[in-house]
């Protein structure tokens, strides 16, 4: 088998994921979905190699990083390598995870190699031990309803505004704040 860490392969993966992500930033739902699923494969492989002693928590941390990538997406600049941006987020969440559980023992290998991130995707999802759905239910109405209507039931913002009685901007703000609140609840929840 050819080495997947080959520079050309990494480069084309970077460009491919970046173009999907940039389309996603412009509101292309399909490109964004593809981006997130391909990214989760890479992240899973990356986290798997970092969390060898805690395999049960890979999927939890992966979901946490995906939420973080989504919530931070406005900070990405098109002239910056996507690898560096995603890696910085994954690294931040990984360090936060270790700190929260004070598991410095696991934290022994280098966290500085961004190139590794897009090296080898791992597509087989494991079971997440934490249930995001339950955490979602705990959000306040103003945040939960917009997320449920738009994100889970697939209504448009206008339709969601009509069924919830909120204004359209309140629906948008509710989704935005709700996903941030979800990320905070996810953090440190086993």
């Amino acid at each position, binding site marked *: 088998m050819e080495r997947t860490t080959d520079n050309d392969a990494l480069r084309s993966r970077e460009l491919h994921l970046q173009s999907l992500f940039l389309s*996603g*930033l*412009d*509101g292309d*739902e399909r490109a*964004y*979905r593809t981006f*997130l*699923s391909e990214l*989760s494969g890479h992240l899973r492989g990356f986290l798997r190699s970092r969390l060898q002693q805690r395999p049960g928590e890979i*999927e939890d941390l*992966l*979901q946490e990083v*995906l*939420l*973080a990538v*989504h*919530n*931070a*997406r*406005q*900070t*990405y*600049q*098109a002239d*910056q*390598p996507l690898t*560096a*941006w*995603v*890696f*910085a*987020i994954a*690294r*931040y969440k990984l360090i*936060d995870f270790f700190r929260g559980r004070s598991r410095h023992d696991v934290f022994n290998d280098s966290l500085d190699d*961004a190139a590794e991130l897009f090296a080898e995707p791992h597509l087989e*999802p494991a079971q*997440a031990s934490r*249930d*995001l*759905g339950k955490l*979602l239910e705990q959000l306040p109405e103003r945040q939960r309803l917009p*997320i449920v209507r*738009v*994100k*889970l039931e*697939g*209504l*448009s*913002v206008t339709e969601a505004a009509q069924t919830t009685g909120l204004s359209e901007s309140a629906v*948008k703000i509710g989704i935005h704040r709700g*996903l*941030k609140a979800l*990320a*905070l609840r996810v*953090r440190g929840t086993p």
Partner: protein
Amino acid sequence: MKTDDLISLLAAGVAPVDRRAPAKRFSIAVLAGLLGAILLMVTLKGVRPDLGEVMATPIFWAKIAFPLCLMIGALGMVMRLARPGATSGPGKILIVAAVTAVWVGAVYVLMATAPDNRVAIILGNTWRVCALNIALLSIPGFVAVFWALRGLAPTNLTLSGACGGLLAGSMATIAYSFHCPEMQVTFWAVWYLLGMLVPTILGALLGRRWLRW
């Protein structure tokens, strides 16, 4: 919830992102910080009565240039630090250069001054209150800059907090310069810097806690 379900949730109905949102947040924060500091200065301290006259002297503008350089440097750094994967950038060069210039100037003035008067030009007349006043005027900017940072994604929390604090402190010092009667570079080199260090250190300490996301 499975990861695939989370991906569907995140992607569903995803809205276009305003790429200039981070720049807008910092514009609002800087505007709020400067206006807040000026308002506090005018109401609590008052503009110095001879402002019209001193504004005609180059030394007054040198006094403003010092915190202005720190403000530009700190703003450049903090805007970069708010983005994952970006280095802090060239802002620190401007900060180091400005502080060095003021210190070199202060040493030069001290050498040229008779030993008996040296302490007097360092302490001025207001050394007791200067740093405290600057720290006080930095409060609106501090809150505004931390608000801006909390909406973004800093990954080096201590450094981001420190740069945010320095940004607030330098904005406060610009405003304070319109009240402060001290015109000696030796005074600014110590007390202005100390005043700006208070929010900087506070920002570094609070950053770890307040900027977590």
